[in-house]
Structures are given as C-alpha cells and as structure tokens.
C-alpha cells in the first residue's frame, strides 16, 4: 500500500470514528439531570446488600465477573512482561554502585514512604465504604514501596521488596478471587454470587457479604502485580547489562 492510499485510509477511518462519536454524544442525556435509570437500580441493589459504596457493589457484586476479567488482563499483562524482560543468555547482571542521595530527598522519601503505604492499605480496606478500593489502594501501596529507591538505593529497595514473594502473592490472590467465586457455587448459589456470607451492619468494615473479601483479593493482586512489573523494569534499567559476564 503506497503512503497516499494509507493516508486516505486513516482520514476515512478517523473521520468516520469522529462523526460517530459526535453523533453518539449528541444523543447522551444532559449532564446533571434528574433521570438516572441505571444509577437508581445500582444504588437500590447496593443498599439491599448493606454496601455503602455503590461503585464497590457494582465492581465486586453486580459485575464481579467483569472484575475477574480485568484482573485476568492485568495478570496476563504482568506475566507477559516477566517473560519478555527476563535476563537473556547474552546479558549479565551488574549490581549498581550505591551512591549519595541528597539529604532533603532522603528525608522526604523516608517520611512519606510509611504514610503513603498506610494510605494505600487504608484505601484497600475501606473500598466498600468510601471511594477507592483494591485497585486504587493496591497501586498506591505498591508505588509507595518504591520511594525506598529514591530515598536510599537499589539494594535497599530489593531488601524490602523480595520479588519472589510478590510473584507468589500475585498468583495466590488471583486464585483467591476464583476460589471465592467457586465457593458461591458450592454453597448452592451461582459463580461469584454474593449469597455466601451475612451482609452485616451497614457502613462497617465487615459489611457487604463477599465484597470486602473480593476487594481484598484484588488489592493484593494489584499491589503484587505492580511491584513485579516495576521490579522487571527496574532490573532492565539499572542492573541487566548486555554482553555475557565481565
């Protein structure tokens, strides 16, 4: 295909997509209106199962199967990264030299690290009560650990973050989600149906049946996945060199 025909194809495809998007947007209900058919039903279903955060109810109860798909996507993506970014036969590991960190940077990183880590765990734990949840909190907790690399050096980061443990944690939490789903089947309900546990008192940590458990599994999965992903990228950027041995 010559460049001219390719350009025409792009213009045609892009123009068509833009026209369809504009047509779709023009038919959307106005922003901030009183008519919310989906929202009303979702809130009613969330309240019936004592879940304070309707979004968590949608993610881990009404559409728990979709969330399993998203978790599988992340798991597969991280698995792909681990395979692609492994140490090849013509590469060797060259541990980086420790270097001086400016004192303000070190102080900032070491003060913020525990705060950020606790914030991430808080966001995971309160997923069914307030905005946030396993995914958001997991990313916050996992990136918080990497402040150690800013505040100290690579060796210190590797000491507080054993990658093998996080790889096992990733697989364990992904299977925990599946096991919770099959527990619903064994109890006589449907896969991932939230009929297994009592719904508890509204707006407490243990409310919502299986929602806090699924949320915790996702939190652990995302945190481990992000740690493993960043570890592979860091290995490539800092440690792995071309050429077989020096």
């Amino acid at each position, binding site marked *: 295909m010559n460049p001219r025909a390719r350009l025409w194809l792009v213009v045609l495809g892009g123009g068509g997509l833009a026209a369809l998007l504009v047509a779709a947007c023009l038919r959307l209900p106005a922003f901030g209106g009183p008519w919310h058919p989906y929202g009303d039903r979702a809130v009613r279903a969330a309240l019936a199962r004592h879940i304070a*955060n309707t979004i968590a109810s949608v993610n881990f109860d009404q559409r728990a199967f979709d969330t399993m798909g998203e978790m599988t996507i992340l798991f597969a993506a991280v698995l792909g990264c681990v395979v692609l970014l492994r140490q090849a036969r013509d590469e060797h590991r060259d541990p980086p030299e420790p270097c001086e960190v400016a004192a303000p940077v070190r102080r900032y990183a070491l003060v913020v690290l525990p705060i950020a880590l606790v914030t991430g765990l808080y966001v995971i734990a309160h997923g069914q009560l307030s*905005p946030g949840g396993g995914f*958001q909190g997991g*990313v*916050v907790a996992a990136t918080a650990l990497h402040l150690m690399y800013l505040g100290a050096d690579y060796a210190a980061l590797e000491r507080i973050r054993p990658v093998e443990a996080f790889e096992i944690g990733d697989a364990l939490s992904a299977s925990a989600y599946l096991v919770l789903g099959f527990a619903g089947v064994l109890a006589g309900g449907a896969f991932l149906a939230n009929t297994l546990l009592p719904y508890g008192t509204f707006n407490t940590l243990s409310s919502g049946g299986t929602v806090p458990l699924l949320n915790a599994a996702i939190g652990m999965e995302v945190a481990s996945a*992000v740690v493993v992903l*960043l570890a592979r990228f860091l290995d490539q*950027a800092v440690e792995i*060199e*071309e050429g077989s041995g020096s």
Partner: protein
Amino acid sequence: MADAVVVVALLAVAGLATAAVANRDPARQALVLAVLGTALAVLFTVLQAPDVGLSQLAVGSALTPLLIMLSVRKVRRRSAHGKDSKQ
C-alpha cells in the same frame, strides 16, 4: 461555580495533553504526562467520579511516567554502551 471548575479542569487537560504531544523528548514527556494525570484526576473528581479519579491519580501520575522513565533510561544506557564498544 461547579461549572467554572469543570471548564478550568477541561482547559487544563486540553492544554497539558497538547503539551505532552508537542514535547519531543520522552523524559520530559513523562513529566508532562504526570501533570496531565493529576489534571485528569481533578477533572474526574469534579465530575463526581472520585473512584476513577483515584485510579487516574495512582496510575496516570505515578505508575505510567515511572515506567516511561525506566524505559528511557534503559534505551539511553544501551545506546551509550553500543557507542563505547564501537570505539
């Protein structure tokens, strides 16, 4: 009042997104992307979607720029290494 905040957030997102595209240096692009992520998080929050805002804040302003920076570092180290071995 709320509409004004939405308009400001939308303009900030549009401006920063254009800046991210116009910037040709990947390392700087990653920094602009981090600021863009924060602006998007503000936009989602004023549009009453704090859950999505939190995801955007964590992924868009911390994780993605970090991955880009690490990739840039690897590529630069590799090309520097290649030049050394040729000399």
